[in-house]
Every structure is written in C-alpha cells, then in structure tokens.
C-alpha cells in the first residue's frame, strides 16, 4: 500500500473523498441546519475544530493504548467517549479563553457529539492505517470539506426558497436531490490528485 503524504490526504479529503458527498457522513445535521448560511458556517467551523482534535487524540489512544493491549474491538466505545469528553472540554476552555469564539460556536458544540462525521472519520482513520500526520490532515480536511458542502447547500436552499416545488417533495426530498447533483459535480474532482 502506497502511503500518500499528508498534504495529498488533506486535499483529497476536501474534494475527492468528501466526507459528506461520497461517504454520506454528517447527513443528519446537514439536512437540519443547512437553512441558513451563517449558521452553517458556524457549525462547519465547530465541526472542523473538533474533528481535527478528536482524530489526533483517537489516533494516539488507538495506537499507544488499545493496540498494544489487543483491545481493538472496544474502539467504538472508547472513541465515542473520547469524542463526548473532548467536546465538553473544548466547550469549557473556549468559554474561559475566548468568549467571542464561544458566542459563535457555543450553541453548535453539543450538537457535535452525535454527528456521525466525527465518529466516522476516526473509524476510517483506523481502517486506512494512517500515520499520525496523515490522520490529523485527514481530520482537518474532512472538516473543511464538510463545511464547504454545507455552506454551498445553504446557499442553494436560500435561492430555492422562491422556487415552486411539489408539496410532497418540499424540505428533505428536494434537499436530497440537490445534494445528489452537488455530489455529481464533485465527482469531477476525482483524478485531480493521484491517490
């Protein structure tokens, strides 16, 4: 297996293996929050921040604690606890250090614990056997990719508000189809970076 350098992993996870558009992770909050550009951007920032942090922490715990002890199979439980704890910690630290940032990210942080993207990235990192730098690059890239997708969709939905949509297709239905078209466009990026 060839190991791509961290920069490649970073770029690829934004455009080619976009966590949302090609791995379908983080859909729940995606549909719910993507009504407003400002809120989407805020949530995207929070996700990117937490994602970068938890991927690194989970990597260290997995390769220095779980693997030597042969406890790989309880990684699900460990990862989910790490994510929940990190989110809580980050919330407290931000509140103390930077009230402005807390004001921007605050309401989104509790939502993140149950965001499948965070958990999914940690699992992918284990399956793809990344090194520490690759894992962190992958986490950060996935976060940015997710932000890109959700902000773009929020913009589209803003425009769509005035379009006439069949009543049964309104809301979730049309959002999914628009996301499909966006995923189609992102396929055009494949081949940009040799994997």
């Amino acid at each position: 297996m060839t190991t791509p350098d961290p920069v490649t992993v970073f770029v690829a996870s934004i455009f080619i293996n976009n966590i949302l558009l090609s791995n379908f992770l983080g859909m729940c909050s995606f549909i719910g929050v993507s009504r407003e550009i400002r809120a989407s951007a805020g949530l995207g920032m929070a996700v990117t921040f937490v994602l970068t942090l938890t991927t690194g922490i989970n990597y260290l715990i997995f390769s220095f604690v779980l693997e030597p002890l042969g406890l790989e199979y309880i990684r699900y439980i460990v990862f989910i606890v790490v994510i929940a704890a990190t989110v809580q910690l980050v919330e407290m630290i931000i509140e103390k250090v930077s009230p402005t940032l807390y004001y921007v990210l605050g309401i989104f942080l509790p939502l993140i614990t149950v965001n499948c993207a965070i958990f999914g990235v940690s699992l992918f990192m284990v399956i793809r056997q990344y090194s520490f730098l690759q894992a962190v690059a992958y986490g950060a890239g996935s976060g940015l990719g997710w932000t890109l997708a959700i902000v773009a969709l929020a913009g589209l939905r803003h425009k769509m508000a005035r379009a006439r949509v069949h009543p049964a297709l309104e809301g979730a239905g049309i959002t999914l189809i628009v996301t499909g078209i966006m995923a189609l466009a992102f396929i055009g990026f494949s081949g940009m970076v040799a994997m």
Partner: protein
Amino acid sequence: MKAITFLRRSYTVSTLRRGVWDENPVFRQVLGICSALAVTNLLFNTLIMGAGLIFTTAMASLTVSLLRARTPQRVRMMAQVLIIASYVVCVDLTIKAYLPETSEALGPYVGLIITNCIIMGRCEAFASKNPPWVAFLDGLASGFGYLAVLMFIAFWRELLGFGTLFGARIMPEGFTLWTLMSMPPGAFFMLGLTVWLCRALMPERRET
C-alpha cells in the same frame, strides 16, 4: 380478561404499525440516513446492515427501559450511548466472525450504527419512559421500518447499477448499466425520490 388481551394486542399492533409506517424513521423523520445511503448499493449488504440495526435498536431500547428508573437524569445520554455501543460491538464481532467479506464491504458503517440518530431517538423519546416490553417492540418496529426503506432503495440501485438482485443476474446481457446508481449521487437521488413517493402516498398530518 378477553378484552384486556385484545387491547394489549391492538396496542402491540399499533406500536408496530407506527414504527414501520406512520412514523417511519427514514422518510417521515429523516433520521439515520448516513448509513441508509452508504450501504444500499447491494441488497445483501443492506440486509445484513438492517438486521444489525434491528437487533441494536430493539435490545438497546429494552435495556434502556429496564434501567430507566436507575439511570440518573444527568448522565442519561452518556449511559444510552454506552449501552448502544456495547450492542454494536456484539453485532460487529458477529459479522466479522461469520461474514468476513461483508464486514470488509460495510467497513466503518457497522460501527456508525452507534451514531445513528434513530436508535438514540427511540431510546430517548420512547424507551426511557415506557415499560420494557413495549420499548422492545417499538425498537423492533423502528428497525423494520428502516430496513424496509433501505431494501426498497437497494433494490433499485442494485437492479439498475449492477443488473443483479442478491448477486443473481436479472437484466439481459445487452442492458446498459446505470453506473450512476452504484455511485454516491445515485444514493442521494434514490432516497430523495423515495421520500417524495412516500410523502405523496400519505400526506403528512400538519401539526402546528
């Protein structure tokens, strides 16, 4: 006595019906669609995934309900996540042991059952307030509703994307495969259309 049995049975039936159709987690509440999209390119994988989810939802609901009086309110969410995670570990190990190839194909999505909002939603909204038996049924019903929608999507995606059903060739030789259907955008389109179809068949009761 008879009347009570009848009532109980009809309550059972209505709980099942509600989970499968009236409050179907996928097209009614738009929950848990991460895995709905990711695993539906082949019917067999979908079936395994759905079975795992039904087991997890039902058992987690049962356990949460049994422990509902003993769980402190403040750590409720964390306790529920840990219960769900333990069952998912069971499912994961079982699939790995008996169906190693499927386990490889499903990749991280078995683990992602943990963050599937359906289970959390059922545990939080229903199982933490109801007796074990009803909670178990409710979990079962939500799981089946989820599986039904997934199978519907997977049916079309496998038929059009690969020309097969459960790996058996259905379409004639000359059939042009809709490669798009086996790729991510196909999943989004198919789910969007399914939501449309189901909502058109039974219009939502508007609640204010």
